[in-house]
C-alpha cells in the first residue's frame, strides 16, 4: 500500500460495476421467493416493470418534469439571492453583522416547518413549492458563498490593489473569479439538498411531481411505484452531479482539481 490512489479507468469502472452488482444480488436474495413480502420490498424486475408502465403512461415524464422545473426555478432564485448577498457578507463585516444572525436563524428551521405558513400565504401552487425550496437553499448557499469569499487569499487582493484595482474591480475581477469554483461546488451540493425540500413539499400538498407520485402510490399500496420514484430521483441526482463535475472542468480549467 503506497497511498497513491492511482488506478486505471477500466479498473475503476470494473469496481463501479462490481459494487452495483453486489447491491443487486443482495436485493435479489432478499426478495427471493417472497422472503420479504413484495408489499415491503418488491423484486428488482417488478420495479423495472413499474418504471416501464409509468413511463408509457406518460405520468413519469410529467411528474419528473414538474419536480425538475421546481428545482430549476427554486435553485436559480436561490442563486440569484445568495450570490450577491454572500459576496457582500464575505467582503463587508458590517453587512455580515447586519444579516448573518437572521440567516443563521432561518437556517436552523427545517424548511418543512415553513410549509403550513407557505400554504396559507400562497396556496398549494408552484409559488409555495418554490418558496419552500428558496427558504431551504438560499440561507445555506449564502453562508457557503460568504465563507468562500472570506477565504480569498489576501495577497491576491493586495496584488490587484497595487496594480491599480478599485474596490469594484477587486470584487468583480479577483474575489468573484477566484471564488467561482468553490461556489459552483456549493451549488452542486445544494441542488442535492433541493431534492429533499421539493419532495417534502410535494408529499404535503401537490397535484404533480415525483413526491406526489410517491404519496399516491403509498395510498394504493403500490410499493413498486414508490421504488420507481426513488430510482428516478437517484438517477437524476447522479446525472446532476456528473454534469456539475463536467462543467466544473470546462468552466475552471485553471484549477488543480480540473485535472482529477
Amino acid at each position, binding site marked *: 500500500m503506497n497511498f497513491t490512489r492511482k488506478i486505471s479507468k477500466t479498473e475503476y469502472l470494473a469496481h463501479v460495476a462490481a459494487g452495483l452488482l453486489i447491491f443487486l444480488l443482495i436485493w435479489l436474495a432478499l426478495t427471493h421467493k417472497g422472503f420479504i413480502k413484495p408489499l415491503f420490498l418488491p423484486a428488482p424486475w417488478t420495479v423495472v416493470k413499474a418504471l416501464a408502465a409509468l413511463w408509457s403512461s406518460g405520468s413519469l415524464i410529467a411528474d419528473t418534469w414538474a419536480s425538475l422545473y421546481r428545482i430549476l426555478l427554486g435553485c436559480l432564485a436561490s442563486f440569484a439571492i445568495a450570490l450577491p448577498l454572500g459576496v457582500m457578507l464575505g467582503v463587508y463585516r458590517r453587512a455580515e453583522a447586519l444579516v448573518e444572525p437572521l440567516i443563521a436563524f432561518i437556517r436552523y428551521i427545517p424548511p418543512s416547518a415553513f410549509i403550513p405558513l407557505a400554504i396559507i400565504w400562497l396556496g398549494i401552487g408552484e409559488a409555495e413549492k418554490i418558496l419552500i425550496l428558496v427558504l431551504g437553499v438560499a440561507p445555506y448557499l449564502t453562508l457557503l458563498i460568504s465563507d468562500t469569499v472570506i477565504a480569498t*487569499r489576501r*495577497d*491576491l487582493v*493586495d*496584488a*490587484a*490593489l*497595487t*496594480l*491599480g*484595482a*478599485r474596490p469594484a*474591480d477587486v470584487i468583480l*475581477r*479577483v474575489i468573484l*473569479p*477566484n471564488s*467561482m469554483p468553490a461556489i459552483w461546488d456549493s451549488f452542486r451540493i445544494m441542488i442535492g439538498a433541493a431534492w429533499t425540500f421539493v419532495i417534502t413539499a410535494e408529499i404535503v400538498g401537490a397535484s404533480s411531481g415525483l413526491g406526489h407520485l410517491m404519496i399516491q402510490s403509498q395510498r394504493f399500496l403500490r410499493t413498486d411505484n414508490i421504488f420507481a420514484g426513488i430510482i428516478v430521483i437517484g438517477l437524476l441526482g447522479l446525472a446532476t452531479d456528473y454534469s456539475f463535475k463536467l462543467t466544473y472542468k470546462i468552466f*475552471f*480549467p*485553471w*484549477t*488543480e482539481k480540473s485535472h482529477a
Partner: protein
Amino acid sequence: MLELQNISKSYLHSLQSIEAVKDITLPIREGEFIAMVGPSGCGKSTLLKMIAGLIESSSGRIILDGREVISPDKDRGLVFQGFTLFPWLTVRQNIGFGLSLQKLSEQQKSAIVEHYLKITDLGDFADFYPKDLSGGMQQRVAIARTLANNPKVLLMDEPFGALDSQTRSQMQEFLTNLWEQEHKTVIFITHDVQEAVFLADTVYVLSKRPMQVKKVFRIPFPRPRLHWLKRTKEFFELSNQITSELEI
C-alpha cells in the same frame, strides 16, 4: 522622486506597544536600484507595504513626486515573495491585468503585453495557466505584470526567496538585465547579502526591532553586471563587509 520622511510603525500586542519600524528617512533618487538587507522578521516587508500603501504608517510621510502616499495605486508596483499570479488568468491575461483596468485601446494593450512576453521570454507560454508554470517562470510573469503597468517605483519583497538557488541566480541576472534597459526606481528587499550586492546601486543594512537604517553601502561595480561578478575578489570582500555589519 520617492521620499520616506520619519516613517515609524508600532503595533499593539497584548496591551504593549511594539515598535517595529523607527524613524526611517530616505531620499531615493529616480532610477536608483536600492536593496535593503536585514535579518528576517525585522520589518522590511512592513516598510515595503507602507510604501505600497497597503499598510498605514504610525507616523511620518511617504511622498512620491510631491504627492503623499495614502493608498495603493499603480504608480507603485509590488512583486511579492509568494506566488500571487491570478490563477484563473493565463500568462498573457495576467500581464495585461493592470492594463485592462485602464482606458487603453486593445492594440495598445496587446502591444505592451507582447513586449513583456518577449522580454521575459515567455512567448511560448502565453496561454498557460499559472499552475502549469515553474516557480521561476511565475515570478517572471509577476515582474512582467507589474512592469506592464509602467509604475514609477518597483517594490520587490524577496521576490526570489521561494526559488531554488540555481533559478534564483538566473532570475537575478534577468532582473539586472531588465533594469539596465528600463531604469526604474527599484526598492528590493532581501536577506541575501550577495543578492543585494549583485543587484543594487545602494545597499541599506537594517537592524532588528525596531528597524532602523544601520549603514549604507554604495556598490561600485559597473554595469552590465553578469554572473561571474559574484566570483570576483572585490565582490566577495564587499559582501563579507556587509554581512559582518549585519551580524553585529
